[in-house]
């Protein structure tokens, strides 16, 4: 909320908030336009998810997961993936529970866990190469450290792959380590996979729910906003076994009851179009990630030329950057804030470029570890990246 306000100034090149400024695909916009003309689509639909949408989702995900998914019992449609996270946590987490959160983390996980009365237990991703990281794959969990975080109170672990902010795509082996612990300790897994289609060459998105023993204990969360570049539609979904999803449905019927109908219908139509061409490279699920890969590479190049050290992500549309190489002295800015907060504020004011400080994504103990990093969002149209290029090329020409 804080950083969105600051970056609303149009003279600032906004690479902060995860907001595409590219257009959604035209057929997605067309489907919504068609829907506006149908009377009954302006009225309430089925609470747990519009029938044509849950059918389309089950179609897409049955293919991906290789198992039968019942549209009525195994799926809940929510207001964004945010709503799925909330419904899952309210349904399954309570006072006395511990929930493992991997740092850095999408910032809502911690307050949602706390609001449910439970205790967040943090474990950081650690850089393999002694702090010299060129790729998101360099950031890993220490298996022994992870195992130590599990105990009899651990109710769930929240997994986010592809990962925001680092862009890490967890490998099958890494997921197996987590899965083994979940099974051993009888824990749930809340798997935030909103960036599931945004994986770059050489990487594969693996669903932890498809590992043996995991379907029964995993809720997998997805997002229309990230899939189709329509964050303003605020539609997401939770997929899982009936005996878990039914509790999410109870939360849903006691919080907002039903999601908007026209948007659900339009999304269903778009999903049908793409589900029929999942073997075709033109499927939007793949074409978007190809588009973003070149933006990723361009962004990384510009940052290096400006003397910064980007961590090239294997997935997602964020990139974290080590800014310590610039040695910008902000010690005279006498706020109690971490370095990266001060850096971002300085960068917004003096360079007219915005980003998000990484310590926003950390628990209290780890803020020091991550305060030399900031996060850029690169799902931006060419003219935005052009404007960023101008700033980055001129970076060293100005005195600090």
């Amino acid at each position, binding site marked *: 909320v804080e950083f969105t306000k600051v970056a609303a100034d149009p003279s600032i090149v906004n690479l902060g908030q995860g907001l595409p400024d590219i257009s959604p695909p035209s057929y997605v916009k067309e489907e919504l*336009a068609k829907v506006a003309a149908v009377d009954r689509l*302006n009225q*309430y639909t089925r609470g747990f998810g519009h029938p044509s949408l849950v059918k389309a989702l089950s179609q897409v995900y049955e293919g991906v997961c290789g198992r039968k998914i019942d549209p009525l019992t195994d799926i809940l449609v929510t207001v964004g993936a945010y709503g799925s996270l*909330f419904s899952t946590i309210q349904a399954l987490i309570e006072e006395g529970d511990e929930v493992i959160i991997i740092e850095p983390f999408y910032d809502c996980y911690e307050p949602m866990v706390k609001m449910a009365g439970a205790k967040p237990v943090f474990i950081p991703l650690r850089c393999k190469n002694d702090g010299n990281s060129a790729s998101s794959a360099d950031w890993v969990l220490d298996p022994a450290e992870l195992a130590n975080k599990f105990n009899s109170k651990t109710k769930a672990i929240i997994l986010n792959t592809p990962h925001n902010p680092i862009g890490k795509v967890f490998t099958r082996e890494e997921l197996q380590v987590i899965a083994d612990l979940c099974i051993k300790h009888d824990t749930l897994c809340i798997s935030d996979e909103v960036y599931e289609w945004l994986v770059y060459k050489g990487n594969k998105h693996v669903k932890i729910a498809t590992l043996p023993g995991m379907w029964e204990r995993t809720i997998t969360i997805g997002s229309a906003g990230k899939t189709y570049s329509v964050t303003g539609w605020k539609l997401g979904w939770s997929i899982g076994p009936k005996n878990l999803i039914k*509790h999410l449905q*109870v939360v849903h*019927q*006691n919080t*907002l009851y*039903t999601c908007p109908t026209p948007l659900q219908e339009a999304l269903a139509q778009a999903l049908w179009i793409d589900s029929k061409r999942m073997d075709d490279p033109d499927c939007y699920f793949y074409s978007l990630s190809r588009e973003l890969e070149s933006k990723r590479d361009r962004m990384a190049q510009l940052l290096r030329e400006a003397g910064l050290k980007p961590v090239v992500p294997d997935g997602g549309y964020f990139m974290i950057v080590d800014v310590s190489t610039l040695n910008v002295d902000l010690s005279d800015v006498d706020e109690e804030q971490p370095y990266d907060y001060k850096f971002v504020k300085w960068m917004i004011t003096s360079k007219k470029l915005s980003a998000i400080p990484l310590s926003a994504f950390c628990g209290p103990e780890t803020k020091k570890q991550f305060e030399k990093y900031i996060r850029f969002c690169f799902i931006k149209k060419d003219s935005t990246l052009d404007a960023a290029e101008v700033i980055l090329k001129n970076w060293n020409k100005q005195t600090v």
Partner: protein
Amino acid sequence: TSKSFLSLPLQAKMSRPVQARRLEGVDKNIWVEFVKLAATYSKVNLGQGFPDFPAPDFLREAFTRALSGENHMLHQYTRAFGHPPLVKVLAQLFGKLLGRDLDPMTNVMVTVGAYQALFCCFQAFVDEGDEVIIIEPFFDCYESMVKMAGGTPVFIPLRLKAPKDGKLMSSADWQLDPAELASKFSERTKAIVLNSPNNPLGKVFSRGELELIADLCVKHDVLCISDEVYEWLVYDGKEHIRIASLQGMWDRTVIIGSAGKTFSVTGWKVGWTVGPDRLLQHLRTVHQNSVYHCATIAQEAVAQGFQRELMLYGKPDSYFVQLSKELQQKRDWLVQSLEAVGMKPIVPEGTYFLVADISEFKSDVPDVPSSDEPYDNRFAKWMVKNKGLAAIPLSAFYSKAHKNNYNNFIRFCFAKEEATLKAANEILQKWKKEKTSS
């Protein structure tokens, strides 16, 4: 102790109780059941509250305009607490209605329907140990939301005063007993939920009745959650009075409204809260930790709808004026229709619901004294399955303890096309003939 499950045949299922205790007692939902029944059996659906006539042209045009415009950023996140054009026009309109200067940023918050506004209120204000007064009959989610927040619902019924001989019952005949109401307030009372115009009865609380409630709120320092979603649907020249405009109430009231009910677009799920910043700040906290943003495009279109209504306020072309005139006619039509067949309607002063006494038709659905299920529930289920006419049993709107207090009433929604109401009439006429001839 760590258990070694890896050596066992894969222990897939979660072996311990998995759901949070806050879900206890809130898992049943009347709508899930009755919406399914209506979808399966009904030929004429007067059950769930939604219009079957189209949304107004100007609103659908606003939606289409927003989509076709150059600005594709309407497909992206907007301001979390409400799209700026929408909160601005809501602040203008409600400022005018309340006679106050409202700040769109702090006195208004947009929600996913009025339903989510209610959720934010209960989560923000109700803690374990708090009591919340709910007036029966009530929109069913109030009770489960209070419970989910850890609070204790305290019920007080509207009591039916027999109408004068020969006159039809009116929703105005259902009243609170002042002494009884006063007795419900205790030091644990955190809030009272007011719903005026009232779903299901259609009661429009009078100034005197609101003052009674207001005095008690002030005396006991209690909050008022005022669900006013049907605020524009008042008939016979009655006035919808906003309790927040009464002495001492602005500072302790959250007003809840709904675009779905205001503009006949229940499927858009756009609602709002209006109130003082000291209360709304807590709603914002709940909102940013549960839903965060509401969908942008519908908010843009609703904003334009309100801009039009603000300009036409009070004029004959105003949708608010036209809709309530149209619905009053439909109300009168349904009243006549029900009377003609022997169902006794309670004429509603507001909303698009009507409750009717079905005692004359009880012979078709025998009572089962040993059953736990309230009679009207069985009746409504039988009616949709056998007559194809969907309605909602009044007991759905009562707490468990009081579900059998009024056994012979069902609720009809009359926000329906003429053809639908005619079809309902035909079913009822045929039913009556069958009874007379048997």
